[in-house]
């Protein structure tokens, strides 16, 4: 038995040795992927956070031509809808040119992988926006993680201004565009016709999904998405 194992190992070793081709050496240009951007100027110290994450998190960006750069310290500014990265070589916080990006992703403190993609929003304030992809498919579930600067009591902030989260949820498909959505059961059901609504209700009940927040809404959405029920919007 030992001999057989030895023979198999020898054969495998031989095959591996023959199939491994010479590893090409690449005198890589260290700055092959040049990130373009402008210097980030910190926001005034109002209450609340203008950022999605408390600190810079290592993540990956993808350019329009498909080139990806990973292991970059990233921070998303929800206030200005900008992606900031930290360039350690020149010790600078740089806002990456939005038009050069296809999207970015990172894994947050809770271990959740979060994917953002740049899309044109054709609503009232039509512009290029970074949307977080909560669920992807023919019809995607997106959220625009906006933070607004609003007035507040001066006891809360001496300037009388505070950053307030104001997230906008949408379902999106390339041919139908955006349709706003709220993170509750009735908003979800409104996207289906009457017979399908019953089906959805039954499905949620059967799987014991109670829509109370964003997390449970996404769980419900993914459940329905798999069944390929027609969505009306």
């Amino acid at each position, binding site marked *: 038995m030992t001999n057989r194992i030895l023979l198999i190992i020898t054969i495998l070793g031989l095959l591996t040795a023959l199939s491994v081709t010479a590893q090409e050496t690449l005198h*890589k240009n260290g700055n092959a992927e040049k990130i373009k951007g402008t210097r980030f100027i910190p926001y005034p110290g109002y209450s609340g956070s203008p950022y999605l994450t408390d600190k810079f998190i290592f993540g990956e960006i993808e350019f329009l031509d498909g080139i990806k750069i990973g292991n970059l310290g990233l921070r998303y500014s929800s206030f200005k809808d900008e992606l900031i990265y930290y360039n350690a070589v020149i010790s600078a916080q740089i806002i990456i040119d939005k038009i050069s990006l296809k999207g970015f992703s990172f894994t947050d403190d809770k271990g959740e992988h979060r994917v953002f993609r740049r899309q044109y929003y054709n609503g009232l304030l039509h512009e290029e926006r970074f949307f977080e992809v909560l669920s992807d498919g023919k019809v995607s579930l997106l959220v625009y993680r906006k933070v607004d600067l609003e007035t507040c009591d001066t006891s809360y902030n001496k300037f009388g201004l505070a950053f307030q989260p104001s997230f906008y949820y949408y379902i999106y498909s390339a041919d139908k565009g955006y349709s706003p959505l709220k993170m509750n059961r009735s908003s979800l059901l409104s996207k289906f016709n009457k017979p399908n609504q019953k089906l959805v209700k039954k499905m949620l009940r059967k799987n014991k999904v109670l829509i109370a927040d964003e997390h449970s809404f996404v769980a419900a959405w993914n459940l329905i998405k798999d069944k390929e029920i027609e969505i009306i919007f």
Partner: protein
Amino acid sequence: MKRKLLILLLLFVAVTGKTQERKYFSLFTDRDLYTSGETLLFKIFGPENESAGIVHIDLLNTSGKKIVEINKKITDQQTDGFIYLPDSLSSGCYLLCTSTRNNPTLTFNQIYICNRFTGIPEGGTSIRSSETRTVTEKPVNELEIEGIDKTRQTRSKAQATIHLPVKLLSQIKGNLAVSIAETNSGYNSESFLKSIKPKEDQIVEKDGVILEGFVKDLKTGEPFKNGIVFLSIPDSIPRFNFYKTGADGYFNFQFDNYYGKIPVVIQGLDPEKKRLLKIVLNHPDSIPAAISSFENWTVSTELRKIAAQNIEALTFSKIFNQQEITIQSGSRPKAEAYPFYGVPTSVVDPHPFIDLPDFTEISRELLPGVKFRAYNRIPSLQVLNSAMRTYFEKAPLLLIDGIPIHDLNIIKTLGSKDIDRVEICLSERFYGDLAFQGVVAIYTSKSNFSRIAESDELIKFNLDVNQPAAILIIPSEKLQNEPDFRKVLLWKPSQKPEETVRLDFQTSDIRGNFKLIVRGTTSDGSVFYKEQIFEVN
């Protein structure tokens, strides 16, 4: 134990047996005999395991000096292209060399080019390579060519059908190359191989041509460490790249998604501005391996006669301004829709305003946030930082037609008439690890960046990157009054292999022998061919 050893031996033989495949490029030209001023068409079949994505085709004289350099992208181990043979070439044998940066085997094809003004010299002798390591193709009998009569009339329509047996069809890899071109017995092109030792640590040209070189200290000639090399490609949307050199002073740039001949400017800079640098490109102008043993060869009377006829035919084609090929323009990536220095804060066109004599006046009157002054004849340039509402301390990135410049005297005399537009960025811009305190990009009316002088630190040249595809022109039937002196009647370098391939072509006014040839590669890497000769009278 013996049995096990036998199994191992058999396995080894089986696996190594696979390595008996073609490891060189096979190059084929449309003809063997050319006249200077004509276009040479070529087809290349690459080896199966070729890692490079770019193949270089060089036209060399018998001393190995490069006359024309072409770079082509390899797709499915194949490529095709063309070479304009310069009018100035003297009559004689020339070599076409096919190479990549890493392949240790060079393929040479020997062709004869006759100068269209002098013809073949009176002496009647020439030298030709007497290399013995020649490449031979495998004729394939299973492939059938139908419909080609032995003789055809000039200017007649014809059809031919290629029948590929199912077995051969299943073995064919990639596309077939089909051509019908003039052939003559006076001269036959030969293909031979030469082995070289490629440099170690060579970068593989996967997606584009690589331009490499060294930055040296002008005074000492030593490699310069931590130098910055700028690459500028002037265009309506200029391209830019940079490289920070290491201890060896080496730099390289890869040109992906570029087609044709592009203007390139390379600059070397000492970030501390203490030393003058010299840029040395690693771009040899000859291939020493090409110099092979040559033998004297007497040009036959028949070849002289054919060459004389060819010259006449080409002269008439030139009089009627007849082109042999049309070049298809390559597509550009949409990703570079804005310049490397960012979307400008403002773009100023000076033409709607009154004529201003110099750049000081232009900056004062027309450019918001730009301060160009020349106190005591020393010019200075500053840009406003719009976020902080103060002027940046350092000078901004100044570009003329997309090329960074450091000598402000160059722009001092630019008036309204010289400038097409000025783009300004009033923020601190970053490009990789480079930071610019604002940007002033001047686009001149001439757009020829002639104001920027060449020096040891700055080199300007045109670089042939990936040659675009070309199609053979077939003259319209309506142009009956014009002569038709095509020597290539059909050129389909990427014909999809099918059981039946129908070919339609039209003979020209040229009389003589023509050859229909079908070439392809099989999955084992070998090149096969089938040919049929017919006469046009």
